[in-house]
């Protein structure tokens, strides 16, 4: 079956829905999502969305820009950061107008709280300027992502946006440098459908599921980045994967940075607030990469609780009333999953794979680049976590991801609307779904189950955790490369036990595993090449940041021989790199 729409948006998270709202009424727009609407992982974001509104204390866009540049370890493109941060107050007001139920200050304004790496200058008694934490994160208790996701979906209902729910995209249709549509299967029936469009936008989210401990949903298997990569699009800065400092021990479920923003302490087995040794001015509110390394170092040096691989996040001094008002979900998670009431006892936490700074390279307007020189692929756009603009560089500041999703979803929507004023439908190639159909037939015809897909997946995730985690070195990374090669060979023999075309989640998991293997190789290759420490990429065998050689973005291309790496300089406007101290 062939469907025709002006625009196809893949992914119903913040970026996809914000773009859909922007395009509704201006074009025939449809959203495809492999999960039902409101199930997207944006809804799991807890702590806040940054904007220099100044509702709680004096703040300026320029301060937010500087924090984001510094937080990125100077790998973020400063023109992109400036655009995102400058639009932040406007998009937050828009969200409020759409109905987002933000928490409120005493005088009824949108409430704001502290978050890691967000600071303001302060002149000390000695006349010297230091930077201290600022209240910049707009929030709705610890359900900020949930309420924004639901509000954007409500706006889509209001504007009659067409949804293809539980459709799983399997490939892009690109011919002669023009993206003409995509192939997807209807999960409920198992039928393959071809979608013809003038423009396709990916807002397909991140890829934390390649690591054993992750805050990410099951759905976050990097489908979008892998599909784009296979279609000949390079991937940018994939070696930068953020580990959030505070995941619930063993499970990796996120405990928002807002918990530290509300005053939570990190303590080791001696009960010491160890952050005073790593970031004396902002302590627990240092950027995520630094807090994560500090926790990991404590654990590796034997100061985890009871000598185990976790430390404590202590909120007991914050007070029951404040916790119940500002962090109700966290109280629930801790009680349900680790049997701890944060009002009375500290929460066991460990770093958890959380956010993908890298992804599909785009312009400031969501247009997708085909190379490091800036050649644009006509008709294809990306925004949100699957994209790399790059506004987060080597390390994203907390609350800047929701901002990224909304700002760039909106801006990409506007850009697509402009593109549509002159764009025509380009012809679909004949049998556009031929390869996908053959792959499906092969999987359904498989009679053996020689290689179990979940064993391959577990082996990948276990090893990515230990060898491509918070600390890296050449030996481990090369071993990881070998393991992925081996797993890719095994993956060729994976078959299906479930032969029903109807809602076949085994088929989905097998396809997702293919995506995990595909981009993991890119992550590892990028990490082997980058011989320095920057943000979330920390090489123990190359322990310094190397601005002379590595102030540049990695571009990974898929070739017959494997991953080929090229580089592109970072855009620096106002802020020259300097040492990051907090």
């Amino acid at each position, binding site marked *: 079956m062939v469907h025709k729409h002006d625009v196809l948006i893949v992914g119903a998270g913040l970026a996809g829905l914000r773009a859909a709202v922007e395009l509704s009424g201006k074009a025939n727009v449809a959203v495809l999502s492999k*999960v*039902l*609407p*409101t*199930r*997207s*992982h944006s*809804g*799991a974001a807890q702590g806040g969305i940054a904007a220099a509104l100044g509702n709680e204390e004096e703040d300026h866009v320029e301060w937010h820009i500087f924090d984001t540049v510094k937080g990125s370890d100077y790998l973020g493109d400063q023109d992109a950061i400036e655009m995102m941060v400058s639009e932040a107050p406007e998009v*937050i*007001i828009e969200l*409020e*107008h*759409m*109905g987002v*139920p*933000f*928490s*409120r*200050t*005493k*005088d*009824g*304004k*949108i409430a704001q709280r502290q978050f890691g790496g967000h600071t303001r200058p302060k002149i000390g008694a000695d006349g010297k300027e230091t930077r201290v934490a600022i209240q910049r994160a707009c929030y*709705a208790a610890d*359900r900020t992502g*949930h*309420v924004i996701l*639901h509000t954007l979906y*409500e*706006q889509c*209902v*209001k504007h009659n946006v067409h949804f293809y729910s539980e459709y799983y995209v399997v490939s892009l249709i690109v011919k002669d440098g023009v993206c003409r549509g995509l192939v997807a299967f209807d999960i*409920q029936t198992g039928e393959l459908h071809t979608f013809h469009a003038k423009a396709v936008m990916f807002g397909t989210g991140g890829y934390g599921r390649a690591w054993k401990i992750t805050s990410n*949903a*099951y*759905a976050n298997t990097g489908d979008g980045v892998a599909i784009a990569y296979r279609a000949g699009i390079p991937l940018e800065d994939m070696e930068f994967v953020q580990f959030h400092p505070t995941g619930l021990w063993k499970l990796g*479920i*996120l405990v928002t940075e807002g918990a530290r923003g509300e005053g939570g302490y990190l303590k080791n087995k001696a009960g010491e607030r160890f952050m005073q040794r790593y970031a004396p001015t902002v302590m627990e509110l240092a950027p995520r990469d630094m807090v994560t390394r500090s926790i990991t170092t404590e654990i590796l040096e034997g100061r985890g609780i009871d000598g185990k691989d976790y430390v404590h996040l202590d909120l007991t001094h914050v007070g029951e009333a404040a916790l119940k008002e500002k962090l109700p*979900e966290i109280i*629930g*998670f801790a009680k*349900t*999953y680790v*049997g701890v009431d944060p009002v009375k006892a500290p929460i066991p936490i460990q770093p958890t794979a959380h956010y993908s700074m890298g992804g599909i390279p785009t312009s400031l307007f969501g247009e997708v680049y085909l190379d490091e020189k800036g050649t644009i692929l006509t008709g294809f756009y990306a925004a949100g976590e699957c994209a790399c603009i790059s506004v987060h560089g080597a390390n994203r500041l907390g609350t800047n991801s929701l901002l990224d999703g909304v700002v760039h979803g909106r801006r990409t929507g506007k850009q697509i609307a402009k593109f549509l004023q002159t764009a025509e439908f380009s012809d679909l190639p004949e049998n556009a779904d031929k390869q996908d159909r053959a792959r499906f037939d092969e999987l359904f015809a498989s009679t053996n*189950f020689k290689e*179990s897909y*979940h064993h391959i997946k577990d082996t990948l995730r276990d090893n990515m955790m230990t060898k491509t985690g918070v600390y890296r070195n050449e030996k481990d990374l090369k071993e990881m490369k070998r393991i992925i090669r081996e797993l890719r060979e095994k993956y060729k023999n994976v078959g*299906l*036990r*479930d*032969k*029903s*075309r*109807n*809602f*076949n*989640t*085994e088929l989905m998991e097998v396809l997702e595993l293919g995506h995990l293997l595909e981009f993991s190789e890119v992550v590892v290759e990028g990490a082997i090449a980058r011989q320095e420490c920057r943000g979330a990429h920390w090489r123990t065998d190359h322990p310094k940041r190397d601005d002379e050689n590595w102030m540049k973005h990695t571009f990974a291309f898929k070739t017959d021989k494997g991953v080929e790496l090229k580089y592109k300089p970072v855009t620096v406007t106002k802020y020259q790199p300097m040492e990051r101290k907090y």
Partner: protein
Amino acid sequence: MQVTFSIQRYDSSKDTKPYRQKFKLEVEPTDRILDCLDRIKWDFEGSLTYRRSCSHGICGSDAININGKNMLACQILIQDIKKKFIRIDPIPGMPIIKDLVVDTTDFFTKYEVVKPYLIAKNPPPKERYQSQADRAVIDESVNCILCGACTSSCPSMWGNPNYLGPAAMLKAYRFAFDSRDEAPAEHLEAIDTSDGVWRCHTIFNCVEACPKEINLTWHISQLKKKMVEREL
């Protein structure tokens, strides 16, 4: 410890009626029911089908029926069940697509009936102010994750499938009681019918089923009260 799972199986594309299948599993008390389903699927029965996504009770994908009660599979641990025989079924009252996956089309259509969006025409250039007290009025209702556990557990819905159900009612409340909404009457009119708010017989099943501990019956009673005041 060993636990027996008895799971209802049904594939609407080929089975004429549902049947049950049993699996014995060695589990830890802290395993989630969702973890157990995953292990059954991966190690024993590749065709076992259920929805899941966030795995920590915020996306609402995995509402299922466990030992007769609607719950989220990712939010319930083995130690919460206190039985070694765990019966798992799809949530009731919705057509089954396959095994534990139900068709939610009707559920979302009913959600749309109540105009589930803020109606406000000319907002000021800055944010609208809302007092903390006004914000508190909608606090519980904005926590709804649309998992469907409430509506599917409602005997009024089982008796009359046209009933919009508690989830849609809660959504009507969420906007009718938002101090920023300029047309609460539009949300109220959508439910002022015999298939709307008046179909609720205060049975409280929805309250018991809600994984986010929302007191839906109280919210519905507030809607009824507001409507009666409106009529007077």
